[in-house]
């Protein structure tokens, strides 16, 4: 199932090597009942057999609806939770089952940006303490002392260095997100995993933070894994995009391939569901002309009891008998374009 990914295709291998390689990553959360005799009554299959790699200096975007396992994946990549199965290689080293103590030196190289800038900063610590915490925890001595270094970081992310002694409540949402970003940059990590870094922000502020992430990447040569539910943001920031549905990776392709020629029906539906900022054309008589759209009916099924075989078959308009009995493998349909579907779309070669 994951065979095509273990060996990167020739085109990819020449351009860059992978900083992180994930193979068959799986996380199942047990559901337990009973106080004295605890027994397992179910299994939430949050992430099931997900494989991808993150090339050095590039950005991988992971998109999907709520409950598709994208946050769980992010937390496994940063080893905040323990994978049930699978393997995570970081810089050629297997970090899947490292103990907390063994993981600690690696925390300098893998950092995370959190979604909610209001709850991810300690309200009782000053900005200086928050941004300087990574150095304190890692017992790293900075060249010109912590204060000077923190102020440099604040300047790097576009904050006033004078604000060293202020508290988080004195800042707006966008500024707090910048504080969070400054904190992740403190140890000069190689990989930053950002879980919905802009979804809590207003549109105008969102653009500031997206541009900042862009600048930092080119200045510091960072590698990003960015998780988001907003497909337009992912189109702007990511080089490669992974689409997840109910814990499965359904499509993995470069940005342009994915947005211009989506192959998995779910990706097609997801893309056509996004409302475009262009007024709907009015026909004669003021009637609204509907944009050609693929409609999905119903909601995402529960990951407690996911549909068998292809998990998308309950909402898919192309579903056949084989989709209910046989899980589709993730295969490389076009160079560096992997799709898990029995009946993919857009298969005719481009003119």
């Amino acid at each position: 199932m994951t065979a095509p990914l273990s060996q990167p295709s020739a085109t990819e291998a020449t351009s860059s090597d992978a900083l992180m390689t994930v193979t068959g990553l799986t996380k199942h959360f047990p559901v337990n009942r009973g106080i004295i005799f605890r027994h397992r009554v179910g299994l939430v299959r949050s992430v099931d057999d997900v494989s991808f790699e993150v090339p050095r200096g590039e950005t991988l975007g992971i998109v999907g609806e709520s409950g598709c396992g994208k946050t769980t994946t992010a937390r496994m990549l940063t080893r905040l939770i323990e994978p049930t199965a699978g393997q995570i290689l970081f810089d050629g080293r297997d970090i899947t089952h490292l103990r907390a103590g063994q993981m600690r030196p690696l925390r300098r190289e893998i950092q995370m940006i959190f979604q909610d800038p209001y709850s991810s900063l300690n309200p009782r610590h000053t900005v200086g303490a928050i941004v300087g915490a990574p150095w304190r925890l890692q017992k790293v001595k900075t060249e010109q002392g912590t204060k000077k270094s923190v102020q440099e970081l604040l300047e790097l992310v576009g904050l006033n260095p004078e604000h060293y002694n202020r508290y988080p409540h004195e800042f707006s949402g966008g500024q707090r997100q910048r504080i969070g970003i400054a904190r992740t940059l403190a140890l000069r990590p190689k990989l930053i995993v950002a879980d919905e870094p802009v979804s809590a922000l207003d549109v105008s502020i969102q653009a500031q933070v997206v541009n900042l992430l862009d600048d930092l990447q080119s200045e510091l040569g960072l590698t990003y894994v960015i998780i988001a539910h907003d497909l337009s943001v992912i189109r702007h920031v990511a080089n490669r995009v992974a689409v997840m549905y109910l814990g499965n990776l359904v499509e993995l392709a470069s940005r342009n391939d994915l947005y211009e020629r989506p192959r998995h029906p779910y990706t097609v539906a997801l893309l056509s569901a996004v409302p475009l900022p262009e007024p709907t054309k009015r026909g004669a008589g003021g009637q609204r002309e509907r944009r050609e759209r693929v409609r999905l009916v119903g909601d995402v099924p529960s990951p407690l009891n996911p549909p068998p075989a292809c998990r998308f078959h309950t909402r898919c308009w192309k579903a056949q008998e084989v989709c209910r009995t046989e899980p589709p493998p993730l295969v490389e349909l076009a160079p560096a374009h992997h799709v898990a579907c029995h009946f993919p779309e857009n298969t005719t070669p481009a003119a």
Partner: protein
Amino acid sequence: MADRTGRAKDARAAAPTVTDTTAPATSSMLDVRDLRIHFPTDDGLVKAVDGVSFTLDRGKTLGIVGESGSGKSVTSLGIMGLHHGTRADIGGKIWLDGEELVAASPTRVRELRGSKMAMIFQDPLSSLHPYYTVGSQISEAYLIHNKVSKKAAKDHAVEMLNRVGIPNPQTRVDDYPHQFSGGMRQRAMIAMALSCNPELLIADEPTTALDVTVQAQIIDLMADLQQEFGSAVIIITHDLGVVAELADDILVMYAGRMAEYGTSEDVFDRPAHPYAWGLLGSMPRLDQARIERLIPIPGTPPSLINVPSGCPFHPRCAYAAQTNGRSVNEIPQLRAVAPGHEVACHLSTDEQRRIWGEQAARMQLSPPARHFHEEDA
């Protein structure tokens, strides 16, 4: 329908901002004139809404967009009369189908609320009561406003659930909110709002908490129901995509004031206010190849206690320096740049046209979007 739009537009163009306190100038479903909602606080006066005027016809949709704290929700709560009992200081006029609401008695507004006007709230999980079944919450307003038996009210709730596309409404009507998924809860909210067939429906961020495939379902549902019921709809959102999809007219608010008001084609294809340019430039586009950089608005929205002098947008505006200090000293009044398209900005129409043309080119917008009232020029 075309005729009605024409009339509303003319009226707006004729007397856009003048405080006319005598009678509504149009036969619109909703006519809001110079609405001011101020909150006295210990730190000072918060001018949450300051001089907002618009009209809305039956069967039409108005989109109100703006950042958090721009006064969108306060405006809608004001129309619904939900500031009663707070310290809010409300001025101006709101005519609902010819009846003035600001000075009306709370009892009268209460009679109208739920029957003639209804609201869909943002977060369906916290807006539904967890202790009551969905059915009883839908039939509550129907029972209050109509003299019917409980049995009939429940049948009506089943019918409403069916109308909004909930499968097995007969059994689902007895479910509690936690048994519904997010999309179904939002459908239940819509069923509740529509249960008395309101003529004015206000939807405050109706799809923000939903996933994009479910959001698409809800957008379609709202458009279908509007055609069926012929209500006037106000949709409040920060998502420009949702507005473009649903709204006929758009009101852009900034710091409690109107920045731009026009048809959705006006605002998307030929925006005239620098804030509207900023919003459009900030948005990554799904439908176009990636542009090198987004064009964000610098700075952050102002505090409503210390609104900047003159144009409230001037500290974040790249063009404020081009107005000979007027942006800093003088509050810009709404003026028409084309019939029915108004903007509160000191830049001349020619300047606005030139700057938007340049930005549209930078954003690589397709040519039709660059025309700035060429037909009027």
